[in-house]
């Protein structure tokens, strides 16, 4: 069944229940559904049709959610891009997915021309659109794409993960059952819409006829705000990267008051959650604590529910066992399935695994995550790290190669290496830059250079100017030495 059926069904069952509470408005299922039809009518008049892509470049809002629903109702494919993403990056996404239309919010409207270059149909959300000719309800099949999520690509070109209606439904339906979500539930949405964590928040709420409460992106790491948001909105299901929870505990006074009784599940994903944070949460609330794992390409494919045994561990909680009907296993260096105690790369196959990247050959066989895991005695998995240059910064995927390729485009830069150092909240992205000997570009101009081309979470935190990059004996850039230097420079500063 198509993904957009969830809102249509909820609107038929209980039209007056709140569906979305955003910074712009709080809307009921009836209002959300009507607005989605109005926007769908407008897009249809602009010749958006079955299978077309529509980029939705906007800050989080109820209107933005309605736009995503409108696209699905036409049988088209939405491409969510956060409003903070620079126009040059949006333009790269537009060049890759060749959308039939680009929608944006009034704030980004003045920058729409460079962002949507090559795409004639443009729509500024929030306007007054004529009553729709709808209702629109294209019967998309399970194998039809529903949305495309763009992630960092190692070559400097963004990669679009194509997610089908069947993929999304298998994932959402499984989790709604696991969480036994009800119309009374209140889901928090912390992640931006271009980040796959948001799929569970939005569609989990819609599947249950519950409400979803949007945290504006610029407040997503404002600790006191987040803590107050959780309490005042009466959130029952919270899902975020662990960094946000750590920040709420350390800076937002989350544990100062008793846990709200309505809070019944806290989910985290995107990076390992430090065990002290897990212990603090478990001591504070009786809510279920769930560690979810899965790259964008597979949706959530494994999970671990925190138990008293987990709390006694001296490492982050395991990523656990398969979820959402998937099959997962690890393969060792010599190609064998890893047994208990052995390490290997995690492979995934099943209903939530994407059919492939947009515009690239389809995926054949299981998806290779590139993540190293260890098999535990009960058959579940511990996460060990990456096999390549992909790193996580507060849950966001960052290909170091993409950061390097972007900085290398600067005319004064001779060579550059990017490394990450530190853990959790204090994790930072450092770049080491050797210049051509002329005037070295300043820290601010390098940040600006990256800011104009990549998402904000890929902007370097620290820029080190060096005469030349250190090399290992076989001539490779000595990344271990650079990481150690980045680490000690930070410790120096904190001292």
């Amino acid at each position: 069944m198509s993904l957009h059926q969830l809102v249509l069904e909820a609107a038929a069952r209980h039209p007056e229940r709140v569906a979305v509470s955003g910074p712009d408005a709080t809307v009921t299922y009836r209002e959300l559904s009507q607005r989605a039809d109005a926007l769908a009518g407008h897009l249809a008049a602009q010749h958006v049709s079955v299978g077309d892509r529509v980029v939705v470049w906007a800050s989080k809002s109820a209107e933005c959610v309605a736009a995503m629903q409108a696209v699905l109702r036409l049988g088209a494919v939405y491409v969510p891009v956060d409003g903070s993403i620079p126009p040059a990056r949006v333009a790269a996404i537009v060049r890759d997915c060749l959308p039939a239309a680009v929608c944006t919010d009034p704030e980004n409207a003045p920058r729409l021309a460079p962002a949507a270059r090559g795409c004639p149909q443009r729509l500024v959300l929030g306007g007054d659109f004529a009553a729709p000719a709808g209702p629109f309800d294209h019967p998309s099949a399970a194998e039809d794409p529903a949305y495309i999520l763009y992630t960092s690509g190692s070559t400097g070109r963004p990669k679009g993960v194509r997610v089908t209606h069947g993929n999304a439904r298998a994932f959402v339906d499984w989790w709604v059952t696991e969480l036994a979500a009800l119309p009374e539930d209140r889901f928090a949405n912390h992640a931006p819409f271009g980040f796959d964590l948001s799929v569970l928040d939005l569609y989990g709420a819609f599947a249950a006829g519950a409400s979803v409460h949007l945290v504006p992106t610029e407040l997503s790491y404002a600790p006191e705000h987040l803590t107050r948001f959780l309490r005042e909105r009466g959130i029952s299901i919270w899902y975020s990267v662990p960094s946000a929870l750590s920040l709420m505990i350390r800076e937002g006074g989350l544990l100062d008051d008793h846990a709200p009784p309505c809070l019944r599940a806290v989910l985290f994903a995107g990076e390992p959650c430090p065990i002290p944070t897990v212990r603090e949460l478990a001591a504070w609330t009786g809510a279920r604590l769930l560690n979810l794992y899965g790259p964008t390409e597979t949706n959530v494919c494994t999970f671990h529910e925190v138990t008293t045994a987990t709390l006694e561990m001296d490492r982050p909680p395991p990523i656990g066992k398969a979820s959402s009907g998937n099959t997962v296993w690890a393969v060792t260096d010599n190609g064998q399935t890893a047994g208990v105690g052995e390490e290997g790369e995690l492979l995934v196959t099943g209903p939530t695994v994407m059919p492939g990247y947009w515009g690239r050959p389809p995926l054949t066989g299981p998806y290779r995550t590139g993540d190293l895991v260890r098999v535990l005695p009960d058959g579940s998995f511990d996460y060990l790290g990456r096999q390549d240059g992909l790193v996580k910064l507060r849950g966001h995927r960052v290909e170091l190669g993409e950061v390097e390729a972007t900085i290398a485009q600067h005319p004064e830069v001779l060579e550059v290496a990017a490394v990450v150092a530190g853990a959790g909240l204090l994790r930072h992205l450092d770049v080491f830059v050797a210049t051509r000997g002329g005037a070295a570009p300043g820290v601010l101009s390098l940040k600006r250079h990256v800011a104009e081309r990549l998402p904000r979470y890929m902007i370097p935190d620290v820029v080190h100017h060096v005469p030349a990059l250190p090399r290992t004996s076989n001539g490779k850039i000595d990344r271990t030495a650079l990481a150690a230097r980045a680490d000690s420079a930070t410790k120096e500063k904190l001292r």
Partner: protein
Amino acid sequence: MTAAHLSEQVVKDKLIEFIRETFLSGDPDRELDEGTPLLEWGVIDSMRIVVLLAFIRRELSTDIPMTQISGANFRNVRKIAALVVH
């Protein structure tokens, strides 16, 4: 002393000095000015805003209410200084 006693120019200077030292490795090329788009160029982000708010509270004796924390109010040093003084 409260921020009301500080002129807007003094507040701007203090903010620029703090941002240079804390987020821009000292800004040796003196590139930062009061109009530099701080959020857009990644000089501050939603995490570093917390550090900046602590500085404003401690050094400028001003508590910025949470309702005032928005992308528009933290766009550049000029905007932040206006928020502190008024």
